[in-house]
């Protein structure tokens, strides 16, 4: 346990030193407050509208942002250490590759988790204080769910970043791969699924398609946070209505994604020649 924490605390200290933690927290807080009050501007209203609408907008935004920030934070975790010359040194210390990887994950995960917690809690606090008559229990529940699932989504993409960082031989390659991963899961996957729906015209097994949503952590994340939006959901998420998976199952699937990506990262890191 100790070597893991020693690696983690260095990552955490780096996150404080280069102000990543501060920057992400501020970004989240500003966006959350902005969306809460200006989210409905498009429909001609200014000011807080409703909690579900705010959360829906926040979720859409975090679906884009969270993976991007996680990938940015961690894409050079391994290949960067190698280019900096410190990986060789670290691996000669009494420290396994698994411990190094988990240590980085704990460190980066804490940065991301803290920033999410601080940023979005600040927004929730602002709503609680400034919006009269808001049901506090509902606010706490929905923001709690939103914050926790955002963390899980971020951790999944952290783990993916380690996998590509363990695979890439140069930092620039890792950056390119990270962009590719983001593009695939955040944009391409849903488009492909939509295309399948349209081409299939319902001929494709209607029982199978909804399950495909489980193959994308960002879709899982949106399904978790937008349970009551059935008819208003755009695009492929309407498939989610046909998905007979309880909410707990969605959470479990997201956790499984994190673990699977971590396992992949470890397998790739172990095979990486030094």
């Amino acid at each position: 346990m100790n070597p893991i924490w020693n690696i983690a605390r260095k990552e955490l200290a780096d996150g404080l030193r280069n102000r990543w933690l501060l920057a992400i927290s501020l970004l989240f807080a500003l966006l959350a407050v902005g969306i809460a009050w200006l989210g409905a501007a498009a429909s001609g209203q200014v000011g807080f509208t409703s909690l579900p609408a705010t959360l829906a907008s926040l979720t859409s935004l975090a679906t884009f942002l969270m993976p991007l920030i996680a990938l940015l934070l961690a894409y050079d975790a391994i290949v960067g250490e190698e280019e900096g010359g410190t990986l060789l040194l670290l691996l000669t210390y009494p420290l396994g590759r698994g411990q190094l990887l988990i240590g980085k994950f704990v460190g980066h995960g804490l940065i991301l988790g803290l920033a999410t917690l601080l940023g979005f809690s600040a927004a929730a606090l602002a709503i609680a204080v400034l919006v009269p008559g808001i049901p506090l229990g509902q606010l706490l529940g929905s923001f709690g769910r939103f914050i926790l699932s955002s963390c899980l989504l971020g951790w999944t993409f952290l783990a993916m970043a380690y996998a590509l960082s363990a695979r890439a031989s140069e930092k620039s390659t890792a950056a390119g791969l990270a962009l590719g991963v983001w593009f695939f899961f955040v944009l391409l996957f849903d488009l492909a699924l939509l295309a399948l729906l349209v081409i299939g015209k319902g001929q494709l097994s209607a029982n199978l398609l909804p399950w495909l949503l489980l193959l994308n952590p960002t879709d899982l994340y949106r399904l978790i946070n937008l349970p009551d939006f059935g008819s208003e959901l755009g695009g492929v998420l309407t498939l989610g209505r046909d998905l007979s998976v309880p909410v707990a199952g969605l959470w479990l699937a997201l956790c499984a994604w994190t673990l699977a990506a971590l396992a992949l990262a470890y397998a790739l890191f172990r095979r990486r020649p030094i």
Partner: protein
Amino acid sequence: MNPVEIRDATLDYGGFTALHDLNLQLGAGEVLGLLGHNGAGKTTTIKLILGLLRPTRGSVRVFGQSPGDPAARRRIGFLPENVTFYPQLSGRETLQHFARLKGARPAEVDELLEQVGLSHAAQRRVKTYSKGMRQRLGLAQALLGQPQLLLLDEPTVGLDPLATIELYQWLDRLRAKGTGIILCSHVLPGVESHIDRAAILAKGRLLTAGSLAELRRDAGLPVRIRYAGKPDGDWPQHWRSVGHEVAALDGRRLELRVGEERQHEVLSVLLAEQAQELEVLPPSLEDLYRHHMQSAHAGAPA
């Protein structure tokens, strides 16, 4: 128990053999110079000892344990070639991080900074360090946790001559404390008086290993004897007649190449003749190295 025991280690690297049947031992308090060109297998050997690579055949033991073992690694200090650190950390923070990873006493950090002469720069970011300062920090890093085996890969590259001498003095002190040291180098001058044994590697094969005296005896290289004497006199004639090579050095001095077993005979003649400016140059490590490289090329044409 020897710090390092390598037996018949062969390492295949995807169709290419990086090491052929390497046999190498290092005792406690012994300094071994591992010499060879780039790509000869020096760094590969170090990586075997560190457990970063596993031999395809043969065995590597470090303090009797398998090399990747955390207990074995805690007793090893390693200075990589061209060591680099996290640029944004200060020298002290860097050492603190590595001390925690190695389980060294926190107090060692400032002691070592003092010993390598970096106390004044301990608060500065490593980014601002010169190459020599980074190398000193690297050495301090390698000495964390009082290792009983020290592996130094090209430690003198980039050091100025004064810092190099200082490094060698360090090695002498550590050897006296019983630390086993492997020094990888292709920089030969100056190193010979600080190593107990030399091992010469070429293309993944160990050409020879032994103390300098043993290497000299095996190589059979001539001793060079220089003295002042007129080249046009009878002397060159005389030496040639008894079978020695003679060359005029600079119009005044002569250089004889004499087999080791006959140097006493020649020297007693020269002493009896009261020869001036007498110099005796045994084959240097560089000569031995060149000799082995040449015979390796002759034996196995590339």
